[in-house]
């Protein structure tokens, strides 16, 4: 199982803040998860693949090559603007 979270304008564009992926493949990377999501929701392609989208795995910023394991929480979000 993977938990996938979306924040801010990305959350609004996709129309969802959270997805559960019950049966991910064993050897997925972040990039594989993104490909899977775009396969399921082709209308997300532009938003999810935008060059400024940041990904975090278990609350740590991670690059697309990072391997995933069951139980991971993966977040997609735009550049942060707090402070």
């Amino acid at each position: 199982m993977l938990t996938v979270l979306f924040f801010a304008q990305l959350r609004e564009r996709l129309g969802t803040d959270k997805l559960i992926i019950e049966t991910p493949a064993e050897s997925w990377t972040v990039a594989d998860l993104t490909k899977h999501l775009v396969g399921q929701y082709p209308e997300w392609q532009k938003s999810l693949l935008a060059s400024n989208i940041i990904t975090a795995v278990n609350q740590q910023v991670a690059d697309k090559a990072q391997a995933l394991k069951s139980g991971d929480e993966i977040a997609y979000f735009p550049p942060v603007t707090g402070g």
Partner: protein
Amino acid sequence: MDTFIRVSVEDFSIADEVDKLTNANVDDGAMVTFTGRVRKRNDGHDVTGLFLEHYPAMTNKLLADICQQARAKWQLNRIVVIHRVGQLYLGDNIVFVGVTSEHRGDAFAAAEFIMDYLKVSAPFWKKETRANGDSRTDEWVEAKASDQEKAAHWS
């Protein structure tokens, strides 16, 4: 060597936070505080309010990590970092960073470093309510290249 981190919809009292930094503290000659507040003009827009969204599980980790990095760079004693979330209006407090140190140079550098890193790495997002005559629109604030440059300057 205490670090106080809080993310909250509640407002904070600068006086209370200053008390946390200085109470029974005769080790430190220097305290620097930064307070960020909602201002009426941003990037050429009239602003009437802000909504602050965040990624709760990640913000505390991230803020603690920035404080650790600051402690590795400078000799610091107490640190307070507070960030508000939710709906804020003009003049409201958004963020507070306070540090104490024996020496003022360390205190100034650390407070600015924490703010610069918070700006580019802590998972908060601002949605601005912009006024244009009588109409109101809610728009996500764009990240600024100048903030990336400020943070890069520390490494």
